[in-house]
């Protein structure tokens, strides 16, 4: 069993798996259950000013399912905590006292006036929690009132509120970013300028999860009407991974600690976020789908992975893939790969063929000598990977790198020499000499 202990901006937890600020962390009852099941930490559901907000009394969630109804994406129109501030503060203090080894961070969202932040920070500090997370991400409901994502979308506000919080509190400050913005680096840079100890991302993505095609109400439907919600779950992971990497490799924010959020469902997802720069991860939808016990799979999976790779600390994973994230223009255009179909594993469904034939490069046979047979035609294969992606059998189709010889498609020799678009003869902006990828 590897040592999974995590130290994220000085906040210690027995493992890097935290529950994100969301319905699962709204009450002591839930949080204690989570800690009993092994979660390393929680970010308590966002506190606001009294009187508390009021939620709808109809459906708050909508979902995208696979055809066998596995939940792939979830959206919600729930607001911040709808419980009185004092009750939350009292429970936070009790839970932190009873579970001192777990991380307990408190999410906050109050109007954009310094006094509000000063007041609530003072109250939260008394709970002896480990830190605060500023909710600049919530895209629905609260944003209409000038909070949440409407702050996170304006870098100047992000910087300003972050600065207030650092000024009026000794606690570590994590700034939670909204993905509902065109360049995630802008609010991240602003948070850093404001003195943030870390950023966490992504919050949910503005979304309409579906439409009832009989009543024509958007979903979830409240008395025949719908409002956009925040989208999360496995479906948003690729978006979150990219934004994590963008911040991790940006010259201005490089080194700024990141708490990775967005569709983390298994230990593998967690490792991917950490490899792209996250120091820990936060989870919500997976817990809301399967219950808190899933953390046990995450813990054992991460432990096995670290042991098999000889990692002795979770920090050794953080950032390992960041150096391999680059701009398209620096990709090696001399790298040649061809798909290869393992005939022993092939079940002859023909999906690779029809995908390639109809929509790509006509590079996979369907019939050879009158027999149903699927084989890659190297002279046509551009190595696009579509066949690998549509094949239903694990490892049946693989991409094999050509290391020598001539690419039968282009007729060019495979030299193994790196060359990218910046020097390509077809590039009107090509530079005269070979320019290597800049060192990261």
């Amino acid at each position, binding site marked *: 069993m590897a040592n999974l202990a995590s130290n994220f901006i000085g906040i210690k937890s027995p493992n890097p798996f935290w529950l994100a600020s969301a319905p699962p962390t709204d009450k002591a009852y839930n949080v204690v259950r989570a800690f009993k099941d092994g979660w390393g930490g929680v970010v308590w559901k966002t506190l606001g000013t009294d009187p508390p907000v009021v939620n709808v009394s109809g459906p708050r969630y909508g979902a995208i399912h*696979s*055809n*066998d*109804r596995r939940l792939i994406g979830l959206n919600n129109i729930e607001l911040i905590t709808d419980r009185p501030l004092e009750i939350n503060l009292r429970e936070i203090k009790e839970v932190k006292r009873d579970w001192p080894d777990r991380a307990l961070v408190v999410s906050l969202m109050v109007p954009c006036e310094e006094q509000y932040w000063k007041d609530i920070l003072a109250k939260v500090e008394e709970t002896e929690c480990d830190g605060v997370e500023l909710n600049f991400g919530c895209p629905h409901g609260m944003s209409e009132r000038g909070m949440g994502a409407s702050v996170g979308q304006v870098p100047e506000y992000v910087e300003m509120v972050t600065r207030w919080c650092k000024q009026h509190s000794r606690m570590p400050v994590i700034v939670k970013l909204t993905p509902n913005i065109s360049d995630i680096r802008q609010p991240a840079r602003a948070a850093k300028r404001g003195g943030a100890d870390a950023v966490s991302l992504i919050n949910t993505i503005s979304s309409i999860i579906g439409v009832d095609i009989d009543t024509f109400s958007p979903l979830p439907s409240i008395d025949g009407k719908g409002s956009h919600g925040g989208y999360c779950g496995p479906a948003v992971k690729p978006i979150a991974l990219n934004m994590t990497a963008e911040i991790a490799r940006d010259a201005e924010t490089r080194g700024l600690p990141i708490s990775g959020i967005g569709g983390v469902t298994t230990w593998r997802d967690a490792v991917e976020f950490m490899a792209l720069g996250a120091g820990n991860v936060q989870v919500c939808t997976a817990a809301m789908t399967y219950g808190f016990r899933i953390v046990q799979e995450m813990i054992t999976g991460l432990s096995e992975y670290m042991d098999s790779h000889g990692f002795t600390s979770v920090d050794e994973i953080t950032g390992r893939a960041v150096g391999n994230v680059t701009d398209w223009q620096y990709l090696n255009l001399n790298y040649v790969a061809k798909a290869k179909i393992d005939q022993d594993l092939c*079940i*002859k*469904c*023909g*999906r690779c*063929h*029809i995908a390639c034939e109809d929509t790509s490069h006509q590079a996979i046979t*369907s019939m050879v000598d009158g027999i*149903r047979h699927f084989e890659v035609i190297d002279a046509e294969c551009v190595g696009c990977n579509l066949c690998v992606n549509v094949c*239903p*059998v694990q490892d049946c189709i693989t991409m094999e790198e050509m290391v020598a010889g001539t690419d039968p498609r282009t007729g060019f020799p495979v030299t193994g020499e790196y060359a990218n678009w910046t020097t390509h003869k077809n590039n009107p902006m090509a530079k005269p000499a070979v320019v290597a990828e800049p060192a990261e």
Partner: protein
Amino acid sequence: MATRAPDIAAGRLSPEQYAVNFSDIHPPLSRHEALVEADRCYFCYDAPCVKACPTTIDIPLFIRQILTDNPIGSAETILSQNILGGMCARVCPTETLCEEACVREAAEGKPVKIGLLQRYATDTLMDEVGEQPFERAAPTGKRVAVVGGGPAGLAAAHRLAMHGHDVVIYDARQKAGGLNEYGIAAYKAPDDFAQDEVEFVLSIGGITVEHGKALGRDVQLGDLRGAYDAVFLGMGLAGVNALALEDEALPGVADAVGYIADLRQAEDLGALPVGGRVVVIGGGMTAVDVAVQSKRLGAREVTMVYRRGAEKMGASLYEQELAATSGVVIRTHAKPLRLVVEDGRVVGIVFEETAEQDGRLVGTGATFELPADMVFKAIGQILVPAALNGSAETIGLDGGKIRVDAERRTTLSGVWAGGDCAATGEDLTVAAVADGRIAAESIHRALSAG
């Protein structure tokens, strides 16, 4: 040897037990089960299951339609190729057809449950819409006679009616449906499904059924050729093969086809007598059907005896397993030698063990006797060519069945044939439906050209 009184009795079981024994052998899928199962289909390119289906139903499409919660559209996809898709979903040996070809059989030994999905779609349409979903073309004024109201005849009649022709079906029995009504094992199509489906097919209109009209007895082929623009022969096989043993006509020996027909028509299964010890001779579907149903009627011991090895049986592996799990003993490599007769009735049967030498079946000389209260012959059915008399010309035969070409045209002009009476391939409901549809399209082309 003391005289053995035959043990033949009705009412061996309680009414509840009959109900259980003859209830649906494959309960239908619920909506949830159908959606989960439909998700397993890979929507293959040029799908092997379609190639394995005699009626070439677009299986990936109909399953995808189920997946998108469009079971009515799914049923229309099925029925456009096979108007008896409901029955075929129940009786097709899918394990040797579409499901054997399913790529998930290759992948993990568990094919998509195509038969049950087909049933889900067709049942939904029949329950929710009730009528068949196709519209008749404008009347052509052409008239076609269809001989036999079984799967081949119904499929042909429906397709011809769709094309605007008027059809008269001549059926020898009191009910249409053929083997669907009189032959299929009861637990494969309970709740009078065969008659529901006949009504469903006929609901297109333009089809008249003349009941109790047998070819050669009540109607003559020559007359039909004169009176109609085209004739389709789909009357099945009226004769059964004989054992060619002495005393075969004595009480205690029955043909399986007749017994199954009685069973299918029985109002009260408890009133149907069955032997305590039953011996079935044969290795095909009919043999399994009569053996399993005898067991389910309460027979104590049922033994199926087949002259060759299990791998040569006409019954699929699945059917053999069904027999075994129903408590039927299957003995292979034994052929009937003589019947044991006492007091004018058959009380047992002596078999000689067989072996295959250079592909030939030979007796080994070793014998054994099975006591039997009832012996069922299930060694195949045959065409009775005399029924085709009445024509000035004789119709061409091929291996004892009516010779047809790829379009199901016989050697007589204006006469098509399909189903079990035609020499086309396997004697399966689905193959008969394919014949009927193919013949109807050929007839339509011929009538349109003329």
